[in-house]
């Protein structure tokens, strides 16, 4: 209590100690006076009286100091003094301060931004309980490593396995929802009833599906997402038990899935509506051989390893293959840890970026160290004087540390602002493939990370010069006229700059190769002309008029006619099956005329199937190589025809003429005659088309496949491609045209082909832009470092150069000497950097993005890139040396010599 009261009094003393110190002086004066008075009275002479009084007091200054220390809190006092002094010092050299703070801020800022992304994407990619137990379950088949699982196989695998605590399936789906406001297309998934309980999602209202509710023929139920609940039903608390009309059927809503649920797995998206898979009214659901795009997700039982689960599932699927050879021959379960599926594609590139950003931080730190070294040696005299006057080394080190920590904290704070901005900017560029992008934010962990980095950097690099200063002999420094410990410190600074140059070159080379890859890709011909193409989807509800084959055909014609009459639209085609670049693929299974019918589907030939209308070639501008394309005359009643691409022709007919060959098709069962050959198009994306095994392509007339059916009770959904003068802006007109039709088909999901292609390259562009930015930053920092060292050198050698010039060297000599020095440093850095860059780019070439290498169409030692980045680095380095060189050359010898 007493101690506390005293503490507060002293704390107050800290704030107004100046009057107090006057007070102490006055009190001690009066003390001495009274003592002298007494001594005089005792008969001493005045001099002796004064001397005795001061002796008894024990030294007036010491006493005053003791009292003053007692007045305030000395350690805070010293710290405040250091802080004030540091601030004053930093304010005195704003250039130095700004460069150090900004350098650190850039290093720390980009680090924090990227670490925030990595933290969410790589370290916490799955927001579900015990994500390490989750595995993706697919069926591996001859043409597909991760093929879809047929529903009967799912049921048998589910029954027979001993490894899974839960095994569920999902299938992406879309519905037209009616009855609640405007007709709207919604996305969602068919799921088995244990899907949400299995992965560990709890509803925010109502309940999840119960076992058995996914059986075929069960009453229709649905779960809806929290966002959809809010948008469509105003978060009505009475939602559970209400009905919702999907594709004309009433589904009872039983629960709401939380908005926090996020899973981006294959075709699965956390979207609006979830329906039990038994509600899928496709006859193929019961077909064991059908590839319906159903994929599985399972949770391993506790203690079961992935290898054990794989062995178990191999046995289960192999057994089924023996029992049902016709459908399951060559088919096996394939298990992949969920984390690998989700981050597998982006992991290498994020690690490359993380390494790059580490380089940037390293360069930033080296720069700061360099600046601090230069500053310390230019202040050597100041510290020499202070040491000589009796300052303790501890005190000087403390003050230096205060200064650098202050700098580091300033850099850290600014870096954090930069990071917040940078994370947002990076995310705007981020590809949709980046898992959990929406959840990325600056986390407290990242905050600590930044803070620790900034403080550690400051303290570490504050210590190096502090150590040098504190161990030096003041007389040496003073003798050298403040030029400090010359040789060794120069060498350290030189090495640091060389390192910076080398590191910057590595980053530049990496970024250069990424840019070259993207250039090579954008120059790649996809086999069709993407400019001018717009794709969208169309959903039509059931209507009595379109329920008959004739009605449906008339309806398709009407849709074509209405879209074609929209101003600016030059060609229209329905597309069913594969759509290039979108990831939607569909396969035709067939055997050739001269082959016996294979006993099971997996022994048949496979080709990518495109079901299109005659104008498709005009829309896509795919070249017709031989024969003819389809016409309006190729209808349901006319002989079945097919058009194949050049790869198909080459693969199956070799040099023989493919025109007139007959193919035995399976879906529908038709014998189709090849009437034409067109150019190959890239189905899978510009960069990884070569990575997929399936290249043969077959085109079938939409009319010959769908002419026999009317639009079913569930309505129909199709994709449409058009060629238009202004594909970016024409879509609202098309929507309006559809709106005016009877039974209102809904057009949605418009994307230009250029957009779709850009999306396939998004991950590349993302990493290229980031890597480019990091490389530019590294270059900037390295150049600042070089500039600093050369400036320092020039500053230290002013006298020497003045003497040279006085002895007859001209400006040119001095200029050349300084430039040579800069070029030498940069040159050594470039040489070392080139070797390092070759190693790094070689490693980059082994990393892959999706199914192709990060480097595309460019060798890791690409001479153009290498020479280009070396030229850039050397030019910038010489420019950075030129400025101080000019300053050195323009020195007035007389003035420089006189000032020494």
């Amino acid at each position, binding site marked *: 209590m007493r101690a506390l009261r005293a503490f507060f009094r002293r704390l107050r003393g800290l704030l107004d100690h100046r009057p107090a110190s006057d007070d102490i002086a006055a009190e001690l004066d009066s003390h001495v006076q009274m003592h002298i008075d007494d001594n005089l009275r005792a008969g001493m002479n005045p001099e002796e009286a004064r001397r005795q009084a001061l002796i008894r007091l*024990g030294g007036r200054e010491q006493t005053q100091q003791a009292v003053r220390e007692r007045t305030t809190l000395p350690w805070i006092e010293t710290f405040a003094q250091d802080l004030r002094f540091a601030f004053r010092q930093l304010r005195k050299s704003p250039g130095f301060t700004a460069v150090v703070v900004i350098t650190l801020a850039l290093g720390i800022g980009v680090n924090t931004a990227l670490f925030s992304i990595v933290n969410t994407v790589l370290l916490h990619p799955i927001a579900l309980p015990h994500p390490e137990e989750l595995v993706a379950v697919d069926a591996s088949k001859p043409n597909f490593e991760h093929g879809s699982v047929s529903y009967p196989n799912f049921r048998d695998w589910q029954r027979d396995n001993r490894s899974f605590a839960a095994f569920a399936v999902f299938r992406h789906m879309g519905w037209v929802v009616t009855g609640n406001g405007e007709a709207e297309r919604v996305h969602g998934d068919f799921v088995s009833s244990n899907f949400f309980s299995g992965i560990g999602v709890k509803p925010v209202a109502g309940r999840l599906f119960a076992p058995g509710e996914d059986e075929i023929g069960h009453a229709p139920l649905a779960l809806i997402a929290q966002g959809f609940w809010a948008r469509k039903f105003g978060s009505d608390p009475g939602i559970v038990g209400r009905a919702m009309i999907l594709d004309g059927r009433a589904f009872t809503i039983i629960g709401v899935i939380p908005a926090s649920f996020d899973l981006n797995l294959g075709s699965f998206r956390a979207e609006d509506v979830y329906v039990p898979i038994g509600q899928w009214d496709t006859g193929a659901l019961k077909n064991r051989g059908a590839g319906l795009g159903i994929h599985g997700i399972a949770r391993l039982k506790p203690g079961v390893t992935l290898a054990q689960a794989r062995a178990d599932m191999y046995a289960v699927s192999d057994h089924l293959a023996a029992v049902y050879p016709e459908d399951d021959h060559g088919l096996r379960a394939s298990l992949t840890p969920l984390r690998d599926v989700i981050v597998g594609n982006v992991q290498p590139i994020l690690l490359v970026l993380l390494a790059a950003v580490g380089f940037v931080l390293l360069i930033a730190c080296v720069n700061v160290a360099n600046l601090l070294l230069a500053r310390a040696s230019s202040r050597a005299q100041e510290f020499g004087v202070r040491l000589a006057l009796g300052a303790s080394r501890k005190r000087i080190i403390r003050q230096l540390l205060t200064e650098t920590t202050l700098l580091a904290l300033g850099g850290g704070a600014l870096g954090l602002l930069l990071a917040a901005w940078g994370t947002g900017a990076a995310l705007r560029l981020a590809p949709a493939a980046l898992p959990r992008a929406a959840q990325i934010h600056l986390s407290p962990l990242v905050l600590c990370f930044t803070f620790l980095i900034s403080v550690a950097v400051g303290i570490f690099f504050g210590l190096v010069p502090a150590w040098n200063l504190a161990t030096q002999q003041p007389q040496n420094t003073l003798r050298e006229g403040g030029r400090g410990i010359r040789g060794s410190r120069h060498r350290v600074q030189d090495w640091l700059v060389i390192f910076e140059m080398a590191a910057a070159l590595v980053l530049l080379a990496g970024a250069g190769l990424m840019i070259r890859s993207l250039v090579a890709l954008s120059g790649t011909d996809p086999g069709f002309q993407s400019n001018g193409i717009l794709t969208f989807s169309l959903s039509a509800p059931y209507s009595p008029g379109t329920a008959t084959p004739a009605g449906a055909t008339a309806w398709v014609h009407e849709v074509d006619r209405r879209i074609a009459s929209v101003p600016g639209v030059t060609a229209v085609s329905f597309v069913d099956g594969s759509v290039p670049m979108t990831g939607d693929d569909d396969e035709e299974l067939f055997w050739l005329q001269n082959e016996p019918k294979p006993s099971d589907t997996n022994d048949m030939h496979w080709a990518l199937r495109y079901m299109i209308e005659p104008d498709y070639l005009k829309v896509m501008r795919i070249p017709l190589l031989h024969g003819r394309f389809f016409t309006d005359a190729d209808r349901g009643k006319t002989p079945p025809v097919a058009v194949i691409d050049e790869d198909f022709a080459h693969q199956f007919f070799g040099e023989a003429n493919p025109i007139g060959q007959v193919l035995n098709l399976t879906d529908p069962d038709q014998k189709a005659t090849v009437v034409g050959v067109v150019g190959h198009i890239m189905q899978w994306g510009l960069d990884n088309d070569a990575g997929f095994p399936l290249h043969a392509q077959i085109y079938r007339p939409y009319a010959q496949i769908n002419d026999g059916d009317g639009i079913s009770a569930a309505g129909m959904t199709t994709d449409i491609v058009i060629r238009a003068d202004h594909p970016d802006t024409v879509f609202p007109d098309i929507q309006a045209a559809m709106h005016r039709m009877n039974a209102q088909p809904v057009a949605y999901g418009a994307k230009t082909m250029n957009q779709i292609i850009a999306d396939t390259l998004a991950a590349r562009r993302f990493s290229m832009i980031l890597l480019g930015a990091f490389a530019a930053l590294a270059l900037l920092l390295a150049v600042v470092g070089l500039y600093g060292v050369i400036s320092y050198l020039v500053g230290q050698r002013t006298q020497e150069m003045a003497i040279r010039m006085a002895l007859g060297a001209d400006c040119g000599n001095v200029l050349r000497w300084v430039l040579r020095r800069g070029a030498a440093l940069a040159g050594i850095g470039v040489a070392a950097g080139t070797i390092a860059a070759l190693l790094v780019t070689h490693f980059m070439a082994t990393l892959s993005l999706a199914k192709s290498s990060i480097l595309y169409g460019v060798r890791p030692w690409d001479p153009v890139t290498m020479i280009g980045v070396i030229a850039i680095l050397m030019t910038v380095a010489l420019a950075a040396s030129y400025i101080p060189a000019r300053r050195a050359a323009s020195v007035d010898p007389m003035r420089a010599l006189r000032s020494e």
Partner: protein
Amino acid sequence: MSDKTDVWQGTLALMVLKTLESMGPQHGYGIARRIEQTSGNRLALNYGTLYPALLKLEQEGAIVSEWGTSDNNRKAKFYRLTRVGKKQLEREARSWEQAAAIVARFLSPAEES
């Protein structure tokens, strides 16, 4: 060193408080002289140590100070005991007496044996 005893830590505060209690308001020099006189000049007081001790007591609220005029018409800072200080004096005097008594008891049997 002389044969005078140094003032050991902790007791100086007690002496200051006692002095102020018996003499009333007094300045630092006066307190110092009084302590020396009371001890029969057997205590050597370094006057310099008195002032931090006074400041500490003041910060703890045991005494207050104000400027006044000394008997010899010198300006001087006078210290006065507060109520907190009186209590502190009683408490410390008591604990000091106890401590002294305990120490005395330890020492007396040794003298007898």
